[in-house]
C-alpha cells in the first residue's frame, strides 16, 4: 500500500499541481466511484421521480402521460380533503398505526434475543441449524406464506384446527383467518416468523465484533452468564441496535424492520376482517391505483411519507439525546 502511494506521488509530482481537490479525487477514484454510483442511483430512482408529487395537487388523468403532470389543472387540497373525509379514514389511520406500533414493539426485540440466545449455544451444529431454520422463511414470498396460512388455519381444512379438534381441545374451529380480532395478532406473528431470523444475522455480526478479552475480564471479575450478556454483549450491540431501531421507526408505517404491512393487509385481509385489516396503503391501492386515480393515490402516499419523515427525524433526535448515537 505504502509503495503504491509513493509511486503515485512520484507520478503526480511530474504533473503540475493546480487543484488539490481534483488531485485528491483522482487519487480516490476507485472509492469515489462507489459513492458516485450510489448517488446516481438515488438521483435517478429517488430524486428524479419526485416531480410526480405535483400530481397530488392536480386534476391529473393518466391518458395525458407524463406531460400531463405539468399541464393539468391545479386543484389544491381537494384530494387531501377527500381522503380525510372518507368514512374509512379514521379506521385506516388507526389500523396503520396500531399494526405498525405492534410490529415495532413486539418484533423489534425478537431478533436481538434470538441473536443472544444463538450466540450462547455452544454446540456449533445446533447453532447453525437453528440459524438456518430461523432465517429460511425470509425467502418465501408473502403470497406463498398466505397460502400456507390457509393450509394451517382454515376452519374447514386447516391442519391446526383439525389437530386441535381431534385432540378434543376445542369444540369449534378457531376463526383465525376471518375473525377481525385475530388479524393484528396474525400479521405480527407471521411477520416475526418470517423475518426475525433474517435480522438476527445483523445482530450476530455485531456480537462477533465484541472483543473476547472483555468476556474473559468479566469472567475474572466473577460475572455469570446473564451478567456477561447484560454488561458485555448488549453494550457491544448497542450501536447496531440503535441504527436498526431508527431505520425501523423511519419505515414504521410500512411495517418497520419486518416490513410488509401492505402485502399482509392485501393478502390476509378479506371482507370479514376489513375493519381491522384495511390500512392506508391498501386504501391507496384500491381507491387510487386500482381505479386509475393516480393523483388521489399520490396524495394518500404523500401524507404517509410526511408522517414517516417526521418519525425518522424525531427518533434520530431522541436517540442522539438519550444515547449519543444517531444516524447523522
Amino acid at each position, binding site marked *: 500500500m505504502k*509503495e*503504491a502511494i509513493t*509511486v503515485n506521488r512520484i*507520478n503526480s509530482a511530474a504533473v503540475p499541481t493546480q487543484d488539490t481537490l481534483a488531485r485528491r479525487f483522482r487519487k480516490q*477514484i*476507485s472509492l469515489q*466511484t*462507489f459513492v*458516485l*454510483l450510489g448517488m*446516481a*442511483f438515488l438521483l*435517478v*430512482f429517488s430524486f*428524479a*421521480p419526485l416531480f410526480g408529487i405535483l400530481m397530488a395537487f392536480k386534476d391529473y*388523468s*393518466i*391518458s*395525458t*402521460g407524463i406531460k400531463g403532470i405539468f399541464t393539468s389543472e391545479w386543484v389544491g387540497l381537494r384530494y387531501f380533503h377527500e381522503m380525510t373525509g*372518507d*368514512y*374509512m379514514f379514521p379506521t385506516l389511520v388507526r389500523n396503520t398505526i396500531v399494526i405498525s406500533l405492534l410490529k415495532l414493539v413486539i418484533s423489534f426485540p425478537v431478533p436481538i434475543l434470538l441473536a443472544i440466545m444463538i450466540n450462547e449455544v455452544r454446540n456449533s451444529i445446533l447453532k447453525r441449524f437453528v440459524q438456518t431454520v430461523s432465517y429460511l422463511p425470509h425467502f418465501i414470498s408473502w403470497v406463498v406464506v398466505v397460502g400456507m396460512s390457509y393450509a394451517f388455519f*382454515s*376452519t*374447514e381444512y386447516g391442519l391446526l384446527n383439525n389437530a386441535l379438534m381431534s385432540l378434543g381441545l376445542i369444540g369449534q374451529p378457531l*376463526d383465525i*383467518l*376471518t375473525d377481525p380480532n385475530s388479524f393484528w395478532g396474525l400479521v405480527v406473528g407471521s411477520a416475526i416468523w418470517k423475518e426475525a431470523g433474517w435480522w438476527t444475522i445483523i445482530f450476530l455480526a455485531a456480537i462477533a465484533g465484541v472483543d473476547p478479552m472483555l468476556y474473559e475480564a468479566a469472567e475474572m471479575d466473577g460475572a455469570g452468564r446473564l451478567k456477561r450478556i447484560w454488561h458485555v454483549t448488549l453494550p457491544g450491540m448497542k450501536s447496531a441496535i440503535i441504527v436498526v431501531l431508527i431505520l425501523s421507526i423511519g419505515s414504521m408505517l410500512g411495517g418497520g424492520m419486518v416490513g410488509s404491512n401492505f402485502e399482509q393487509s392485501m393478502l390476509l385481509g*378479506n*371482507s*370479514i*376482517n*376489513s*375493519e381491522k385489516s*384495511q390500512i392506508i396503503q391498501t386504501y391507496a*391501492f*384500491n*381507491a387510487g*391505483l*386500482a*381505479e*386509475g*386515480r*393516480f393523483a388521489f393515490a399520490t396524495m394518500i402516499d404523500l401524507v404517509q411519507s410526511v408522517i414517516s419523515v417526521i418519525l425518522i427525524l424525531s427518533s434520530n433526535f431522541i436517540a442522539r439525546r438519550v444515547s449519543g448515537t444517531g444516524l447523522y
Partner: protein
Amino acid sequence: MNKKALKKPSILATTLLATTLLVSACSGNNGGSSSNTGNSTATPTNTAENTGSGSTTEPVTLDLFVDQTWWPLKDWSGQVPEEITKRTGVKLNITVATDDKQLPLMIASGDLPDLVATAAQHARMADSKLSFDWNGLIEKYAPDFKIDSENVAVNTASDGKIYTVRNNFSTKEEWAANKETALLMGAGISVREDILNELGNPQLKTLDDLTNLFQSVKDKYPDMIPLVLNPPNWHRGYFEQNFGAASGLNDVDGKLVHGLHLPANKEMYLYMNGLYRKGFIKAENYAYKSEDQGKQLMYSGKGFAYAWTTQGSDRLTLDAKDSGYKFINLPMKLSDNYKSVNTGVGWQGVYITKNNKDPEASIKLMQFLRSEEGQRLAMWGIEGKNWNMSADNKYPEFTYNHLDDSQRKEKGVYYWGLLAGSATTELTGSFVPGTDSTKTGQEYTALTTFNSAIGLVVPGADSQEQVIKNNIDNLVKNEEAKVLLATSEEAASKAYDTMVAQADKMGLGKYEEWANSKYEEVKKNFQQ
C-alpha cells in the same frame, strides 16, 4: 510498476460498471415508452414485408393481453386458433392478466400491447389517446365491415366513436331468431342429486321450502356444509333474483333506483344472514378469494349446495367426475317477487391500441371474428369436424363435449369466441337438448325481461359519478359481511341500515339523480 498496472484495469472496470449501470438505469426509467417505440418501429418492416410479398407468407403475430385472470388459454394453440390464423393470416401471442390491477398499471405506463381484451376497463380503453377508433380503421381498411344500429347504440363512446364491439350482446332480431336455443345464464343453485333423493325430493316452491331443505341436510348430515357460495361473483345472485332486487340500478316504474334503496334488498340480506345464523353457510366462505376454494368443497363432498349459475349443475358434475357426484339445479323461481332483468350491453371487447403494429390486420381479424362464420369457428369449432347443425337448423350438434373445459382447452375453442362472439352464438352453442342446464336455462330465459338501456348507464372514467359508484361498491364489499355475519336479526338490520346511511352520505342520492338523467338520454337511442 506492477501494482500501478493492476490498478488501472480495476479503475477502468469500476467506471465501466458505473456507466453501464447508469445508462441502464436511465433507460429503465423511461423504458416504457422508449423500448416500446423501439419495438414498434422494428416490427412494421416485418409486417410490411409480409403484406408486400403477398398474403401466403408468414402470418403476422400480434400481442394480445387478456384482462381476465381466470382465462384458461395461455397460448394460441389448437385446431381452432390454427384455422383462424389460416383464414386471417394473424397469429396471436397471448398474455393473461395476473391480477385485475395489471391493465390499469399498463395503461398508466403506456406499455400496451397490440390488442387488449378487457371487460373491466372499457371506460379507460375507449380513449382516442390509447386506442384506434374502429370507425376510422373500417373506413380505411375494411369498408365492407358493417356494424348494425343496435351494436352502434351500445358501443358508442362518449366522443361518438366506436373503439370496440363487445361480445355477448345480441340484437332484437338475433334474440327473436334464437329464442328457444339461446338460453340466458343467470344465477342458480346446484345441489347433490343423491342427497336430494335421500331426503325424498322435498317440494321447493318457496324460500321457506329452501330453508327447510338446508335444515334437513344439516340435521341428517351434520358434517356437511348445506350451502357453499361461489366466492367472488355469484354469492348473492340467486337470492337477488328471488327477492327482486338487483345490486346495481333497478328500473322501478320508469325511474332508476339503486339496490341499496330497495326494501327488497334489505329483506334479501336478512334472509341470507338467517342462513348463516342457522349454520347453513360458513363464515370463512366470505373470505375466500378464488372460485376454487368454494368448488373444492363441492368436489370433496363437503358441500351440499353451491350457489353459482344456471349452468352450475352440469359444470360441477363434469368437474367432479373423479368423485362421481351428480349435481342438479334447484328451481329458479321460489318467490312471487322474482325478477331478473337482462341489462346486457355486451361484456368483453377487444381494443386495437395505438401501439398496434398492424392495425389493418387487426381490424380484419375483428371483422372475421364478428362474422357469422368467424363467430361459429371461434365459439363452436370447425364445421363438419367439430359440429354440424341440428336437423331443425337451430343449434350445433357437437362431436366433442362442448362443456368440458379440458376439451375446449385442447382445441382452443369457445374462449377465443368470447373476444367478439354475439350472445346468441355463444348461447346456442351451449344448447344441448334435455340436460339439466338447458332445463334451468329455459326456465330462466322465460322469466327474464330485457332492458339494455340500464346497461348503458355507466359513468365516464374519472367522473364524479364514477368515484361515488366505486366508493359505494367498495363500501358494500367492506361492510356487507357485517350484515351477512351478524349474530342476530336486529344486529343484521342495524348493520344494513348503517351501510345504507353511509352510502347516502357518500352521495348515493346524487348518483341516482345522475343515473336517471343519463337513463332518459340513452333510452332515446333505443326508441329510434
